[in-house]
């Protein structure tokens, strides 16, 4: 029984690591499921040595740190991370450092005003500002890619100041 328990744990850990680095869907859990049922079937009731490993937790880890916003907002004509975004950045930095296999894409955006290509470059500036902030907190730059959508993917449609404010952002996406 002990052997089965160790085996199932080892396999679960392997599945977890494999899930993180290769993009395998983590909610399939085929190995764990069959092992559990085999164990239960073979030994009948009272098979208490197998500990089921729930992998849905690691699926959630693809969304980054829990309870922290993935979106960093910017003021008009500003391309530096605001002071009040620091705690948010720190939470992400902590998560990325704790997950060396995590790949992060920072997507910079602008509001709709101005030309497409110039705004693409301004969005890039915002994404790189977040990247620098993460770097200053010790994040490995190889885990981070900064890209821009410019004005092509607004979060809010419309021409109001409120819409503009929602669109000036960097989205932190875990791949």
């Amino acid at each position, binding site marked *: 029984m002990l052997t089965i328990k160790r085996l199932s744990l080892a396999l679960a850990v392997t599945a977890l690591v494999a899930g993180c680095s290769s993009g395998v869907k983590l909610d399939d859990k085929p190995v764990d499921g069959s092992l559990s049922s085999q164990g239960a079937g073979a030994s009948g009731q009272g098979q208490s040595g197998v500990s089921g490993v729930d992998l849905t937790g690691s699926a959630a880890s693809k969304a980054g740190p829990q309870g922290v916003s993935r979106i960093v907002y910017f003021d008009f004509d500003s391309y530096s991370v605001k002071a009040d975004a620091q705690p948010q950045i720190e939470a992400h930095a902590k998560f990325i450092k704790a997950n060396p296999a995590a790949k992060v*894409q920072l*997507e910079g955006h602008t509001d709709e005003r*101005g*030309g*497409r*290509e*110039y705004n*693409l*470059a*301004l969005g*890039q*500036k915002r994404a*790189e500002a977040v990247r620098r902030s993460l770097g200053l907190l010790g994040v490995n730059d190889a885990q981070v*890619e*900064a*890209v*821009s*959508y*410019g004005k*092509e*993917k607004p979060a809010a449609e419309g021409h109001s100041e409120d819409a503009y404010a929602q669109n000036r952002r960097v989205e932190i996406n875990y791949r």
Partner: protein
Amino acid sequence: MTIDRLPSLTTWAAGPRASRRAMLATLAATPALPALAQFRVEVTGVGLTQLPIAIAQFKGEGSAPQKISAIIQADLERSGQFRGVDASGLALDETSRPDVAQWRQKGADSLATGSITRLADGRWDVRFRLWDVVKGQDLGGQGFAVTTGDLRLVAHRIADYIYEKLTGEKGIFSTRIAYVTKAGAHYRLWIADADGENAQSALSSPEPIISPAWAPNGTQLAYVSFESRKPVVYVHDVASGHRRLLANFRGSNSAPAWSPDGSRLAVTLSRDGGSQLYLLSAQGGEPRRLMQSSGIDTEPCFSSDGRTIYFVSDRGGAPQVYKVSSSGGSAERVTFTGNYNISPAISPDGKWLAYISRVGGGFKLQVMDLATGTVNSVTDTTADESPSFAPNSRLIVYATIQGGREALMTTTLDGKIKARLAGASGDIREPDWGPFQKH
């Protein structure tokens, strides 16, 4: 009694190959849709010198699938250099000898006549003749045998012939434009005739497409696609639909611009931090950095001789148009009016720079005479973007908002004659005017 013999038609041109209109492939599993974008041409404005020309209805046109004379007249009027004279109610064809006095009285300097006849094999025999009715001179004509699908092209070729004979310059009516539409979360890259008609979808995507750029050979388009969740540059063969990834370096890849000989592209890459300009072989490979600057450098465009690259930089604090040798070196500022100047386009004849300037919160098309530095604001709209010159340097196509809807417009360089290419559906943006076609 003297019988007037018409001189025989001086040139007969073989009909254009139908294969030019080969099916264009589309991205992903989207089914091929028929050419849908319907354009109407509305020409406004009055030019200083416009040649008055009458285009008579072609004999047989009433029952033909395309109104050849109407297409020719719209082409010539859109150029800004011609004014149409009413030619209705007369039955003429390319063999008619016009009553010169009658046409002079109507105010025409020139007259075009022609015919369109169904051939036994289902193709069409299209003929025309051009007359100088001031001198009573036959200016020649041509004949074509074409499929139904090429009738619009024949009309454009005839308009080119007339334009060249009467202005001495090459016509652009047989050229094509590329542009992008957005309908919800559906983006398409279209290729249409220069009059906006006959649009065919080259690419269909759920992610944005921006900055289409025709290769100088007119058979390929470079563009930026966000289909892989970051901007990358593709080169796309229009006839086959085959495309290859040209630039997918770390970070963002955008703003492709072809060198005039088609061997290289200038692109904006963020691979080394910031947005900077690089040169890349059209075959791909390692990019060569063009300059190092402390700001954003983007939107490159080559001069026609390939020696200069105009671009946008905010190295001085705000975006302005600069130029630099295509072999690199120090850049020279070109725009000095206003604090936001972007999207440069250089005319093929090297004389004009078109760009977009932010003026009082709006974005307006400007045309600069490079010899004198004089700048003219040529539109009365305030959301202009993406100017592109016609290959004869006489017209600019751009996107703007008119009546609350995005539209493509063409304008003469002085801003006096404008034509709206009004799309039926979807926001229209990012036009790029293709080169002269080899034929």
